[in-house]
Structure formats: C-alpha cells, structure tokens
C-alpha cells in the first residue's frame, strides 16, 4: 500500500469525528483501550512443503509466513554466518487498494523492518549454520504474504516470521565429496531469543497501540519498537508526522510491557512443537 493508495482509503467525516470523540474519552471505535492489542491467533505448521510456517491473525489482519531452507554462499563480510533473508509481499487479495506488481516502498519498508528485528535480536544463532566456512552456509528464506490487510501489517508480519522460525525444522545437510547432501533428518532451529515488535500510531495527541486500517488512515505518525527479553533491538519511525521525545519514551515502555505478554505466547509455540 503506497501512501497515495492509503490516502484513497476514505474515512467519512462523520466517522472521523466519531473517532476523535471516542479518543478524547480515552476509547477507540472498536472499544479497545489505547494500549490494548486486537485478538492475536497464531497457528503454526500450516504449510507442509515449507520447513516452517505460521499464519497469524491480528484482528482482521491476516498474514502467512513460510520458511524455506537451502544452502548457498554466505553474504559478503559475514563469511562465517548462515544467511537469513526476510521478504514480504501484500497480495492483491488483501484489500481493494492493492494491485499486483513489484513491491512498492511501503512493502520494502515492511520487509526490512521485520528483517531488522530478527537480525538485530540475533534470534537465530547464524554461526551454527555454516557448512564450509566462507564458502557454503545455510540460507534461510522467510517469505511473508499478507492475505488480508486491516492495519498494523508490521506487527502481524513480525509475529508470523518469528513464529515460523521458532517452529521450523532445520534439515541436516552434510558435505560428501565436496557436495552438499540432504541427510533427510531434521533438527530444531538454533534459536536464542524471540523478538517482538509493537507498533503505535499517533492521532493528534493520542498514541494508540496496534492501529486498524481505519486508524492508520487518520494517523499522523507511526512507530515500531522491537524488544527481546534483554531490551530493545530495533525501532522504526514511519509515516509523515513526528513525535515528541516523551511520546517515544512512553511508546518504548509500552513496547516492553506488551512485548513480554506476546513473548509468553510465543514460548508456548516452541514447547508444543518440541
């Protein structure tokens, strides 16, 4: 959804007025508090052809992530680490405003912010994913598809990515006669932490967590803050407005508290799937 397309989401004046009235009373149009996220449903192992997968519903936003694991050359400058790439696309099914085509800048930003959270948290111990140092490493592709868009694609995509990675089964590759051979057996991913992103939107003076598409159409600015058990690992301010330093610090506190709740939910996933 490019910004020009987002502006085509028309929120009627009356509806906008209703939103403002509700916000000034400390409520949102769907009845939530400012710091309340929508119901979050995570389903894992939904695609058998993938090494790991997850479908996340955050309210009416619906995202599916699939992990495919192959071998390849390491990234330049990171010769002794496995490669990890997160990409995202918003499918034309997701909303009447999406058209098929190469990812526009908003989708590039979405993929990069989710990628940054996974990368900077060092969620996956990539040093354990090397076959021939400097030459052949595991390459993990996480591809996310937004099936239905109702706001806050950042968090829904981030939860889908992390859930899919947590429950992925890593194929065991071996070198035989200088060739990579798939042994057919699998092992759990070398996971060290679970990054959780929390996105907040500012509408006027109000800062609300997990905005819907309708709220995003009225927002001035947006901030995404990713945390792990140890602290902060990634942040991105987005959209055309600004924040005061105090609003950012408050959002960071909210991200820490909410992040803990969601991380507890993600921990359940790892246990269930052994």
């Amino acid at each position, binding site marked *: 959804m490019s910004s*020009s397309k987002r502006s085509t989401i028309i929120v009627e004046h009356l509806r906008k007025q209703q939103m403002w009235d509700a916000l000034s009373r400390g409520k949102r149009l769907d009845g939530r508090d400012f710091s309340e996220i929508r119901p979050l449903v995570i389903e894992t192992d939904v695609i058998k052809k993938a090494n790991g997968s997850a479908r996340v519903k955050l309210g009416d936003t619906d995202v599916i992530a699939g992990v495919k694991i192959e071998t390849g050359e390491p990234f*330049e*400058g990171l010769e002794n680490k496995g490669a990890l790439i997160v990409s995202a696309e918003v499918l034309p099914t997701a909303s009447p405003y999406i058209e098929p085509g190469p990812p526009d*800048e*908003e989708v*590039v*930003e979405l*993929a*990069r912010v989710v990628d*940054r959270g996974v990368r*900077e*948290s*060092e969620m996956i111990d990539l040093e354990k994913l090397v076959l021939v140092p400097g030459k052949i490493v595991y390459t993990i592709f996480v591809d996310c598809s937004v099936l239905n868009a109702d706001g806050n694609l950042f968090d829904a995509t981030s939860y889908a990515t992390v859930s899919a990675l947590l429950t992925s089964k890593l194929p065991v590759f071996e070198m035989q006669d200088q060739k990579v051979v798939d042994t057919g057996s699998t092992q759990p991913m070398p996971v060290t932490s679970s990054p959780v992103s929390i996105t907040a939107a500012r509408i006027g003076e109000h800062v609300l967590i997990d905005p819907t598409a309708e709220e995003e159409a009225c927002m001035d600015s947006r*901030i995404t*803050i990713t945390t*792990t058990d*140890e*602290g*902060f*690992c*990634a*942040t*991105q*301010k*987005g*959209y*055309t*407005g*600004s*924040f*005061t*330093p105090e609003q*950012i*610090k408050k959002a*960071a506190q909210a991200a*820490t508290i909410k992040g803990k709740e969601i991380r507890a939910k993600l921990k359940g996933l790892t246990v269930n799937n052994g």
Partner: protein
Amino acid sequence: MTQTRNLIDEDGKRTDGRGPDELRAVRITVGSVKNADGSAFIEFGKNKILAAVYGPREVHPKHMALPDRCVLRCRYHMVPFSTDTRKNPAPSRREVEISKVMREALEPALMLQDYPRAAIDVFVEVLQSDGGSRCAGITAAAVALADAGISMHDLVASCAAGKVNDKIVLDINDEEDKEGQADMPVAYMPRLEQVTLLQLDGRLAPDQFDECIDKAIGGCKMVYEIQKQALMQKYFGNETELKEEEQ
C-alpha cells in the same frame, strides 16, 4: 550486533580519536549546485554528500498532483564509487527504504499546503560514504530546502547515537556502525522539539533507550547550529565580519 573488537581505548578515545560526546567534523556549503533551486554539500566525517532541491514545480506524471498541497519526493542514492566494493547503481532495498524515511523526516518541517498541485524534488547523492550517511543526507537536504526558499516551520537536523563497548556514544562512524553494538539515527526539529526520524539497529538494554535518544537529540542540536551558520554564511556573509561592521 555482537562486538568482537575493542572500539574505545583506556583513555576513553574512540577509533578516530573522539571522545564519547564528540561530533565528527561537519562542514556544510550552501548553493553548490548552480542549476538547482536550492542545494547543499555536506562533509560529515568522511561522508561527502550533495543535496539538490528542484521545485516547487509542475508535477510529472500529472495524476500524482494533489489539489490541496505539494507532493514531496525524495531520492537517496549512492554512486557506484562511494563504497569499499563497487555499489550497483540500481536502487537497492536499503536505498528505497532510506528515501522513504528521509522524505518522512523532512515533510513535517515543510508547509506543503503553500504549494498546491506542485512538486518538490529532493535529490541526495552520496559521493563518498561513511557511517551515518542518512543523517548527513537529511541535514544537507534540510539546508537545501531552506536555500530553495521553501516555507518551513523549522530546519531538520539529524545525528545518530549508538552503543560501543557497552557505552552510549554520539555520532557513530563507519567502523562503529559495522562492529559496534547499536546505531540509532535520529532527526529532530529543535525549535518545535519534534522527532521526525527514529530508527534503531542493534541491541540496547532497557535503561539505555532513553539515554540513547537524549544523546542523539543533543547531537541534532549541535548539527542545527552548524546548519544555521552555513545558511548565514551564504546569505549574510561571515558572522564575525558582520559583528565587526556593527562596532
């Protein structure tokens, strides 16, 4: 980011000899591109970045025009010889993202409703890259916009803070960006006290987040003074000369 090498010595000096709260050398030259409506060349450490502004001008393609305000377009681009290994000149995902956050960092400062149906184009070309090129680019672009005479609420000044050797330091350089523990670029409008860009790459402990933002904002305020000085230099000549004339 896990740090493997010591980046601060026993005397508290960083790899380029700076202290923890010291900015790299910053020099801004206003009006260095003759054909542009506004321009600025910034040297920020080893960064050499040119920003040029064209507009307000007619929008092409025409369907992009907005009836009530001006369209702001921004392109951040690195030339192929600006990096250690040659950079493919086609825009990368990184450049697409930086172009977007840069536009969003500048937009709050501009009175776009003053120029309906028009476009303002901001081109930021990185000729030589060092750490913090997006911050230097935003800083130069804000000066170029002011030089173009665009109505503005404030300048946008930008500077990063980050974590090296578990310490929060100002203005991360290339080595510290690649080998350090965290990098937080911030853009700030000092007069309005508004943050217009905030990103974070790397890990910060819970109590370090606020410290890092505050340090980066402090750096933005230093950069702001250099921006104003550069604009004064172009439009009013050397400030010390002015003072001498007054006496």
